[in-house]
């Protein structure tokens, strides 16, 4: 009696489970397809999305005065040696701008200096066959900081040269030539894709620390409504 009742009671439950499992399976399949969708209809979809790392806070530094004070001549002796310089207006210092970047066998483009667009984002050359060097950051010959080169992944002229960054792998070689003719060789350390809201801009544009090279373009899915890509693709290389 009790076993029959239990058996009868169990049946609808099993059928109910099928009712629930069916849509669940469909959702799971749809999810799989959506993943394939993202990988196939995006730039650098095979590059896993990265979370930005902790950012060191920028600190304020005063430019040290280069010349030491003259020898003491007065009766009293100074207790500490304080740097003193002539405060006449200094001249702007010229740095050797990068003029060409080559990545593995896939990218070979000219580079020109760029700044900041009115909306506060990095200025970029209009052509996808030219990369922009962020001229307010480090240059390749600098002893510290990241040299940042960026270029459009596509323009009205077609797919840009930096679209090939999606296929770059750690260990690949990068060569940057600067305006003095000096050649700077780098080895790719990381290839990362960040959702734009989480792109670690402070790290990419870091002007301190070991010399590095960052190659930046867009990646991920194209948001047609917003008119931009959802992600940034960032290749970091070290000398």
């Amino acid at each position, binding site marked *: 009696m009790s076993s029959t009742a239990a058996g009868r009671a169990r*049946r609808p439950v099993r*059928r*109910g489970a*099928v009712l629930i499992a*069916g*849509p669940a399976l*469909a959702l799971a399949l*749809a999810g799989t*397809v959506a993943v*394939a969708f993202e990988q196939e*209809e*995006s*730039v650098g979809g095979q590059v896993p999305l990265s979370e930005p790392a*902790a*950012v*060191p*806070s*920028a*600190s*304020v*530094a*005063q430019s040290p*005065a280069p010349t030491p*004070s*003259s020898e003491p001549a*007065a009766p*009293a*002796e*100074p*207790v*500490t040696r*304080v*740097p003193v310089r002539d*405060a*006449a*207006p200094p*001249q*702007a210092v010229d740095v050797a701008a990068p003029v060409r970047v080559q990545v593995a066998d896939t990218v070979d483009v000219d580079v020109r200096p760029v700044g*900041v667009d009115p909306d*506060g*984002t*990095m200025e970029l050359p209009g052509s996808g066959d030219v990369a922009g060097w*962020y001229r307010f950051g480090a240059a390749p010959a600098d002893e510290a900081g990241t040299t940042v080169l*960026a*270029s459009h*992944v*596509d323009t009205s002229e077609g*797919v840009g040269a*930096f*679209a090939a960054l999606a296929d770059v792998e750690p260990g690949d070689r990068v060569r940057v030539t600067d305006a003095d003719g000096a050649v700077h060789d780098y080895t790719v350390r990381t290839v990362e894709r960040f959702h*734009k809201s989480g792109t670690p*801009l*402070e790290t990419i544009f870091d002007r301190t620390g070991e010399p590095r090279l960052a190659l*930046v*373009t*867009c990646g991920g899915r*194209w948001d*047609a409504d917003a008119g*931009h*890509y959802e992600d940034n693709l960032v290749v970091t290389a070290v000398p």
Partner: protein
Amino acid sequence: MRTHRLATALGATALAAATGTAFALPAAAADGDAMLSVLHGVPDTTVDVYVDGELTLDDFEPGDLAGPLELAPGTYSVAITAADAEDDSEPVIGPVDLPLEADMSYTAAAHLDAEGSPTATLFTNDTSQIAAGEGRLTVRHVAAAPAVDVLAGGDPVIEGLENPDEQVLDLPAGTVSAAVAAAGTTEPVLGPADVDVAEGVNTIVYAWGSLDDDSLALATQTVEGMHSAPGGVDAGTTGEAAAASHGFFSPAVIIAAMTALVALVTVVGVRTAVRVGRENR
């Protein structure tokens, strides 16, 4: 086991803390120190500078900038004496008290007031963040002269600046052709001179000396490290790169496949529901 796990957790925390500390180390000064620079803007007079009774700058010459000194927060007494003084008992300027707060940047200027008498002014240097692509220009009037206008490229950008006041502007980074004119005029009494307003840097320009003695001059100081990263890198304009990388799974194929899948599941679900309903009846 529990102890081990706790030890690991503590280790990770310690590591994170250590890393955080390493990152937080400032480039130039001990954490919490105040930075003090000293500008000598009194013409024709070499001086000694005493801080809290100790000779700190010996034979300090007009137009020179000293520092920055890294000082623990607190109030310091500064006296400026003739260059051959034996101690600070007969100062020509001061003693003046300089209250210095932690992590702030200051410049103490020895200069002439508008009437030509020696005095000292403590300025606080603006070290707030500067927008990407911009530089900060601070102009300080420490000359024996009436109110002035500051011209950039011939146009007044600062008007009616009086001794010992300052004005601060954030500008697109670049070289500014700066000149100083009597207030309300455009005929330079000083300059024009090229001033490099570097990106992310506070470039502080002092007009010092004396108008009557024809000794007006410019002095500059820079305070660095306030730069910001750009707000983003928008490096795509058409979506073509994404479209170009389509393989077999074009959007049309995927939408069709998903529609078919949903239809199939709906049919199976409805049939099952009908059958269950019949059996329960």
